[in-house]
C-alpha cells in the first residue's frame, strides 16, 4: 500500500473534538486540496498527517507502515511540512533558513547534495535573489516564499502545505499553485490547505471538504465543490464560471438563515 494514509482519524484538544473519524489517502503524483470553514479541522488533519499530533483514535501509515514504527528522521525525510504563518525566530539569512530543510538528511550519504537541494529550492520558489537577505528584512510574501523553499529543500515524497498562499498577492498565489502542481506532476504527493475555492477547483486533483471535524466530501473538485457540499460546509451560495475549460468558483452571498458556527469563530462583542 503506497502513499500517506489516515484512517478513522480522531483528534481532540482540551475536551473539544477537532477531528472525528476522517479518512484520507494521499498518493504519489496527486495534489489534494483540504478545504473547509475556520475551525473545521484542516490544520489538525495536516499536522496529524505530518506526524505532529498523535491521534486519539484511528491509524496513520506511510506506505503501509504505521507511523509508530517509523523513525522520526525517516518520517521527516519522507514528509515535508509547511506550517501556517511565517515563524522565523532569529534573523537568519533566507539561504540559512532554506538549508534547515536539509536537517533530516544530516549524516546521510546524500548529504553532499545539500547545496544543490538548497539552490534548487530557492530557484523553484523564485527567491534566489533573496538568498543573502536577512529574513527580518523580507516582506510577508517574500518570507512565505522562502519558507516554502525551506519545505521544498527537504525533497520529501510528500509535501503538506498549510495555507501556503495566505500572505501572497494574486500573481504569487498563481505561481505558488503552479509550483505545487508541478511538484505533484513530478511524482510527489501534495496536500494543501486552501481557502480560495477557485484555486482549489483549478489546481487540485481531489478535494477533501471538512466541516466540524468530519469529511463532507472526498472527490474531484467538480463534485466536492458542488453547490450542495459548499452550501453545507461554508453556508454560502457560489457563482460558477467556466473559462477555457477551467472552473472558477466565486463566493456570492451567505445562505439565510446563517448557520450556527463554532464559538471560536464568533466575533467578540
Amino acid at each position, binding site marked *: 500500500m503506497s502513499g500517506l494514509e489516515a484512517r478513522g482519524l480522531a483528534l481532540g484538544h482540551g475536551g473539544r473534538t477537532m477531528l472525528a473519524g476522517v479518512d484520507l489517502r494521499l498518493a504519489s503524483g496527486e495534489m489534494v486540496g483540504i478545504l473547509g470553514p475556520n475551525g473545521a479541522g484542516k490544520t489538525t488533519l495536516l499536522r496529524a498527517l*505530518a506526524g505532529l499530533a498523535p491521534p486519539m483514535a484511528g491509524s496513520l501509515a506511510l506506505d503501509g507502515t504505521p507511523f509508530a514504527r517509523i523513525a522520526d*528522521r525517516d518520517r521527516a525525510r519522507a514528509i515535508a511540512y509547511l506550517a501556517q*504563518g511565517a515563524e522565523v525566530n*532569529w534573523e537568519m539569512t533566507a539561504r540559512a533558513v532554506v538549508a534547515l530543510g536539509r536537517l533530516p538528511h544530516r549524516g546521510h550519504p546524500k548529504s553532499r547534495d545539500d547545496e544543490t537541494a538548497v539552490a534548487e529550492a530557492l530557484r523553484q520558489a523564485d527567491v534566489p535573489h533573496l538568498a543573502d537577505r536577512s529574513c527580518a528584512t523580507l516582506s510577508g510574501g517574500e518570507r512565505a516564499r522562502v519558507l516554502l523553499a525551506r519545505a521544498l529543500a527537504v525533497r520529501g515524497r510528500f509535501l503538506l502545505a498549510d495555507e501556503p498562499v495566505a500572505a501572497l498577492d494574486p500573481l504569487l498565489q498563481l505561481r505558488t499553485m503552479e509550483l505545487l502542481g508541478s511538484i505533484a506532476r513530478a511524482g510527489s504527493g501534495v496536500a494543501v490547505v486552501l481557502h480560495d475555492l477557485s484555486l482549489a477547483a483549478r489546481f487540485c486533483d481531489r478535494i477533501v471538504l471538512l466541516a466540524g471535524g468530519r469529511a463532507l466530501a472526498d472527490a474531484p473538485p467538480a463534485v466536492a465543490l458542488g453547490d450542495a457540499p459548499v452550501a453545507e460546509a461554508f453556508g454560502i451560495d457560489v457563482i460558477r464560471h467556466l473559462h477555457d475549460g477551467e472552473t472558477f468558483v466565486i463566493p456570492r452571498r451567505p445562505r439565510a438563515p446563517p448557520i450556527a458556527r463554532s464559538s471560536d469563530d464568533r466575533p467578540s462583542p
Partner: protein
Amino acid sequence: MSGASRTVPERLLVPALAVAALALTAASVGIGYAPLDLTAAITDAWAGRNTPEALVLLELRLPRAILGLLVGMSLGLAGAAMQGLLRNPLAEPGIVGISGAAALGAVLVFYFGTNLTQLTLPLGGIAGAALATIVLFALAGRGAGTTTLILAGVAINAFAGSATALALNLAPNPYAALEVVFWLMGSLADRSLAHVWLAAPLMAIGWLALLAAAPGLDALTLGEDTATSLGFRLSSLRLWVITGSALAVGTAVAVTGAIGFVGLVVPHLLRRLVGSRPGALLLPSAFGGGVMVLAADIAVRTSGIRPELKLGVVTSIVGAPFLFHLIWRLRRRMT
C-alpha cells in the same frame, strides 16, 4: 542583527576564539601576586620537586587559570543553548533556576557544615543543581512547553533566593554571613586542582549534551511544529539542553559562585559575527565565554584595586550595560 556581509565563517572564528582563550589561560598562569620564575616552576613541577615555585604554580596559578577557562566555556555554551531553546536573546543559563539552586546548595553547606573539606562546598552546590533539575522536570513535566519551563525556573529561583536570604538572616555571626555573601559574588581565587578534577568531567559531559542539541536548536528557529516535522522530539531536545546546562553551569556555580552575565552577553556579541543560527553559535560562545571570564579574572588581579574585586561583580558591571544596549535594540526594532 546578522547581515550576510558581516557573517564570519565559523571555521575561522572558532579557531581564533580558541587560540585567544588558550592564550589568556597561559597569560593567567603568568600573572599573580607573588613573583614567580615560571621556567623554574614548570621545571620543578615537571620533575615532581616540591619547591615553593612548583607549589605556587600547581596550587594557585594553574587551578585558577584552568577553572577560568572551564567556567567561562560552560557559561557561554549554556547561555547560547538556552537562548536557542527558549528562542529569546534575553535568556541566560540561570533562567531555569539551576544556578540559584547550586548557590543555595553551597550556602547550606556553609551554614550546616562543621567538618568542611575543600570539596564539601562544591559538592553541596552540585547536589543543589541536581535537585533543582529533578524538581524542574517534575514541575514542568517531560512534555513541558517553554512557558512552563520558565515558570518552573522562576519558582525555583524564588525559592532558592529566599532560602539563601533566610540562611543569611539566621547566620550565627556577621562574619559567617559576610563569608557567604563574598562566596556568592563569585571568584576563582584559592581554588585547587582538586576543584578542577571535580568540575572538569561533569562540565565535559554537559558540553557534549549541549553540542549534541545543535541541530535541534537550529530546527526550532522555525517553531515547534516545523522542528518536529524535521524529525526532532522537543521533549528530548529540552532534556538535552537542560541536563547539559545543569551539569555545566551547576558545576560552575558550585565551584566558583555566581558569575553573572557571561551566558547572556557572550552569545549576544557573537551573534553579530556568526549569524543567528543557534547551532552555529554554540562553539564560538563556549570559547568566547572562556575569553570573557579569563580576561575579567586577569583584570581583577592587575587592576590594583584592593581588596581584590570579586569576579562575578566585574562580569556583571561590564555585562549590565550590554543588557541595556540589547533592550534598547529590541525596543527600537519593535517600534
